[in-house]
């Protein structure tokens, strides 16, 4: 007996229903939420951003108010984190300093990412000699060890917080360019790019509509992690006296003034360090969490 097989339901059924954009977001959030540590990182970052916005409201004192009578005080009910060498309230200074650190971080990373993405997309998409030239430039920028490139830029432009942003931004360009180029190369190889080319789409359409959205995840992850590095670098430059100048409540600069009182009043150096560390830690674990949630290998 050999039964004949006939087509029963020619209309194909769809797997799922529900709207998908929302679903993508939900899936991403679900994965992200499961990573408890990353969630903590997100909250830390959010907390600092709120502090920066509302610094004038939550600061107990004027961060610039000098009070030489009460200088070098250890923490009290009046000054929760004590006072510095000029009697200024450390907590208030730290709260205002949040604005500086976040601004430096966001501006420099945005600047570096913008140029880096432009270079990386161009190099990765067009290839050939354009790629060679751009990547040689990137190689040269990468040949400067650590923050030495930033140092050189500041030595020319002069010490100031603005110049720190420029310097740290330039120093971030090669990282973004490399990552974007790598992702562009791998996305470019995918068949849907060829399919759209075969339809007659222009290079501009392909780059903007088809490549850029699909390389965004690694860029976002890198930008988050890069924020941590940028904040650290900027604080380091200010610590060396090459960034924010006194009496600016920049954390690195505060730390620097605290080192002279390390023996007598270690709390002056302690609190700015904790502030930098927690904010940087926040960005780092937030970035790690994003990477895990956005990693295509983790999907299914």
């Amino acid at each position, binding site marked *: 007996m050999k039964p004949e097989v006939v087509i029963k339901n020619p209309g194909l059924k769809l797997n799922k229903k529900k709207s998908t954009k929302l679903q993508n977001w939900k899936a991403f959030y679900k994965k992200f939420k499961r990573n408890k540590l990353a969630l903590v990182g997100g909250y830390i970052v959010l907390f600092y951003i709120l502090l920066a916005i509302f610094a004038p409201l939550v600061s107990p004192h004027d961060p610039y108010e000098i009070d030489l009578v009460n200088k070098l005080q250890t923490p009290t009910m009046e000054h929760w984190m004590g006072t510095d060498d000029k009697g200024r309230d450390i907590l208030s200074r730290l709260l205002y300093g949040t604005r500086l650190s976040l601004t430096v971080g966001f501006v420099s990373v945005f600047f570096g990412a913008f140029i880096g993405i432009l270079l990386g997309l161009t190099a990765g998409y067009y290839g050939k000699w354009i790629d060679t030239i751009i990547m040689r*430039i990137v190689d*040269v920028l990468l040949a400067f060890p650590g*923050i030495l490139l930033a140092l*050189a*830029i500041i030595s*020319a432009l002069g010490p100031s917080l603005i110049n720190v942003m420029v310097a740290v931004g330039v120093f971030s360009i090669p990282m973004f360019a490399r990552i974007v180029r790598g992702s562009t190369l791998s996305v470019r190889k995918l068949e849907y790019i060829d399919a759209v080319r075969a339809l007659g789409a222009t290079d501009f359409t392909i780059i903007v509509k088809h490549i850029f959205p699909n390389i965004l995840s690694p860029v976002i992850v890198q930008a988050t992690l890069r924020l941590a590095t940028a904040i650290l670098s900027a604080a380091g430059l200010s*610590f060396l006296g090459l960034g924010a100048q006194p009496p600016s409540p920049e954390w690195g600069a505060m730390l620097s003034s605290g080192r002279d009182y390390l023996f007598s009043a270690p709390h002056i150096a302690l609190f700015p360090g904790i502030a930098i560390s927690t904010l940087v830690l926040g960005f780092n674990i937030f970035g790690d969490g994003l990477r895990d949630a956005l990693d295509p290998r983790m999907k299914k």
Partner: protein
Amino acid sequence: MFVFIVRRILQTIPVLLGVSLVVFLIMQMVPGDPATLLAGEGATKETIAMIRHQLGLDRPILYQYVDYVIHAVQGDFGQSLRSSRPVLDEIMVRLPITLELALASIFITVVLGMVAGIISATRQYSAADISIMIVALLGISLPSFWLGLMLIYFFSVNLQWFPVSGWGTISHMILPAITLGAGGAAIVARMTRSSMLEVVRQDYIRTAKAKGLKEHVIIYKHGLKNALIPVITVVGLQFGALLGGTVLTESVFAINGLGRLIVDAIRTRDLPMVQGGVLIASVIFVFMNLAVDILYRYFNKRIDLN
């Protein structure tokens, strides 16, 4: 392999030229005129013009650059504006100290980082793994200059185990090396861990299991060698970060190395010194990268295919 090494060495020449060009161009951005600066206050226009001519500042910029490169290749980086001594001489006094510090730190980075990473990966989700990963997260998040200060406070001021500052003996080296190497060790540990976990998922590990090998043979013989290949590159990059990091560490521990020399030169606007210092540090890093690339190639012959 030989062809590769020769090619790789030849490829560093344009990079070095590029680096020197960037340094040169950055110095061109300096507002104000070095001649005026050098002549000091109250100098006559004639004096300034003479200095300009002496420095070759009145010639076209390309000539100046070519001149600069030719001199640099011969070891002539000009004179320090502050001490009037040749820049190279000053740097050569400081460089050995910085290299000692860098080597001590890279040792900490590699040994501590790899061991911690391997422990973490082989005991995924164990208490040891979680603690190592938390410490590593702190390692990449703490500012090195703050870590240095805290180490000084606890170990030098309170416990008085180590000297507060200076350079010369092993005990001088320990705290600075930890300060400088901690961040790198954390990065290497994280990289080693993720690389090992990645390798363990590969098909050839399944083949090794199907062969009947013991778990630890699979991990150490088949896994580790593959897992460490990408780590080599990271270590190479860390060396660069570390060279840059000496700037901060030397400042914290008052060590008279190259980093501190550069920072002091920036403060006093001793531009030839900054130029020379940054250039020499970069050249060292470029050669370090060259060595890492050759090593990487040696361990990873598969890149032949690309």
